[in-house]
């Protein structure tokens, strides 16, 4: 009888001790099933593969000289800090934004050139969502008499194609190029927007 009681006590003690196994306040090793998520071999930060580089789909521009770069530009009232000189500083992460529409951006080329293409760029980053802007181009050799060379047209800007549009025109002599914006479908602005305007 005593033996049975003793055995019962031993069994109870063993059973009671089960929940204590692995309690981490002790130095016992805690049974662990571990998953180690491995890092790939890399030598530098890369573009995530799920977002293929869209640059090969960018609308190409002429490889000739951009006559607008760094030249004098004149426009009306700009929004906030988005001044006109941003439009030909060679950087697409700065931009000009007019305070309302219509808006004109006049580029004084400083000399007379034969031009055949005007490119209008926005920041190509994907957070610059697709939008349309209605744009016309007028040119002049004397800054007084202007001639329409590209009538107003609703152009599609899309980061998938570089957020840029290309306006090809009949080759014409120009010392002044006026780019006229009459519509912008972007939801965050009431004005025209351009990170760069290039003249080739």
């Amino acid at each position, binding site marked *: 009888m005593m033996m049975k009681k003793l055995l019962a006590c031993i069994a109870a003690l063993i059973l009671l001790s089960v929940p204590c196994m692995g309690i981490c306040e002790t130095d016992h090793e805690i049974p662990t099933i571990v998953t180690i998520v491995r890092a790939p071999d890399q030598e530098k930060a890369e*573009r*995530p593969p799920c*977002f293929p580089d869209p640059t090969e789909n960018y609308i190409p521009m002429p490889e000739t000289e951009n006559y607008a770069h760094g030249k004098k530009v004149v426009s009306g009232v700009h929004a906030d800090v988005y001044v006109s000189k941003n439009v030909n500083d060679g950087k697409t992460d700065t931009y000009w934004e007019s305070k309302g529409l219509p808006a004109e951006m006049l580029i004084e080329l400083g000399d007379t050139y034969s031009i055949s293409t005007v490119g209008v760029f926005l920041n190509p980053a994907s957070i610059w*969502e697709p939008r349309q802007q209605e744009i016309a181009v007028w040119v002049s050799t004397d800054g007084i008499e202007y001639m329409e060379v590209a009538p107003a047209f609703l152009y599609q800007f899309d980061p998938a194609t570089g957020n840029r549009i290309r306006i090809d025109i009949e080759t014409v002599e120009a010392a002044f190029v006026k780019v006229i914006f009459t519509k912008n479908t972007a939801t*965050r602005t009431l004005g025209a927007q351009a990170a760069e305007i290039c003249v080739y």
Partner: protein
Amino acid sequence: MKRNCMTLLLLLLSIALLLPALSGTAEDEATMLTIYEGPKTMSSSSVASVSVNGYDLFVYDVMVNHEHIWNANTQPTRTPMTYFDFEGKVQIKISMPGLGKDVTSAKVIPLSYGIEPKIENGVVTFCIDEPGQYTVIFNDSVNKALHIFANPLETDVPDFNDPNVFYIGPGEWVMDAIALADNQTLYISGGAVVHSIISVANAKNVRICGRGIIDGSDYPAWNQAGSYARVPIDLNHSKDVSVEGIIIANSNCWNVNSYSSKNVTIDNVKVISGRQNGDGFTFQSCTDHVVTNCFARTWDDSLVLKNYSGSTKGITFRNIQIWTDLAQSMEIGYETDKGWTLDPEISDVLFEDITVLYNFHKPVISIHNSDDAYVHDIVYRNIVVENAMMQGDNGFNKELIEMTLQNSQWSTVKDEFGSIDNVLIDGLTVYNTANGKVPASRFSGHNEKHRITNVAMRNVNILGNPIQDLKTMKVSLNDYCDAITIE
């Protein structure tokens, strides 16, 4: 006797064999642990070494800022941070070779965890059995405090074969920006460090999830010449959006931003920032947002609601840990009508189960209605402030609670004023203050018409003492306040 011995042996053998069946299999008992290698382009911190159940973790050094006053050219410092996922129990071991001195004491916060770490030969050891955010303070100094994000195991992982799911795996990645459209999911795996920003504009049914890090360290602070704000999570005119599980570090501006958006849930998102205007969770003119189980250590307001283009309604912050190195912990304002809208309101806001680990600069609880909004039905429930260390700005804004109806440098509507009505603070506990005394609180209405009314405080305990009258609470009221009570 011999028979009895045999019986005993047989019984013990039987019990030994039965044990796994009685108590479950070894797998059932085992802790499930997921750890993430850091990118091979990066090195684990030399400041802290951390292991979990014997497995070494990759430790990141992230920007924080110990300057507790605004400085447009402030320079952040760094502190260690690490993370893992688990279910069960884990033992965490920490050594701090980069602390510059021996570890002689350690404290794990929030104090509500009730953890008493052991220190042996400079190694800090403690155990946890519930997921959460754990911060370890060494030698009673906030310098090099270690943030440990112990996530629950991942569930509801998206289907990577779904064409609407973008999967970013472990490793270091860079991309100018990620724009998500309707019905898209972005998964950032644990072990990933993504130098980018995520924009959700005019979109619906969007999910951002995973365990990885969105990192802004590539960019200068947004207010520096040539830089601009690159908001890690930017929701704009969107609805039905969820953000889960990720870490945001080293942002060059504010962090989780939502503007004119609706039906947004944010869960288990951890923000650590040390640069200019590094607000944590900041919502403007939003409705129906629920933020749960999150962490915000910030160098500007941690949780902040404003009106930019309409009213704010139905915002819940629940079970959040806050560490505010600059500005306020829970701020409504200052801009309450930046969009100059008709009849702007901020209403139906709940801050519940909020633990403020440290609040170094301005008030812990604040409503600065500095435009013309009607701010009403605001509830603060079970707010625990472990360290209310408000140093203020030149003697101002040192209060524990501050509610005002005055113009400020952030006002848009300067000739009209609003009101504050029906505010409940139910459960406010302060463990520690800068000078060991009860900090002041301030209520300031504007005029006879624009008043602060019906603010009820109850279950307030400061420095271990129940507070049951306004005088003991050091509450100052001007003539344009009514029914400000404490019980």
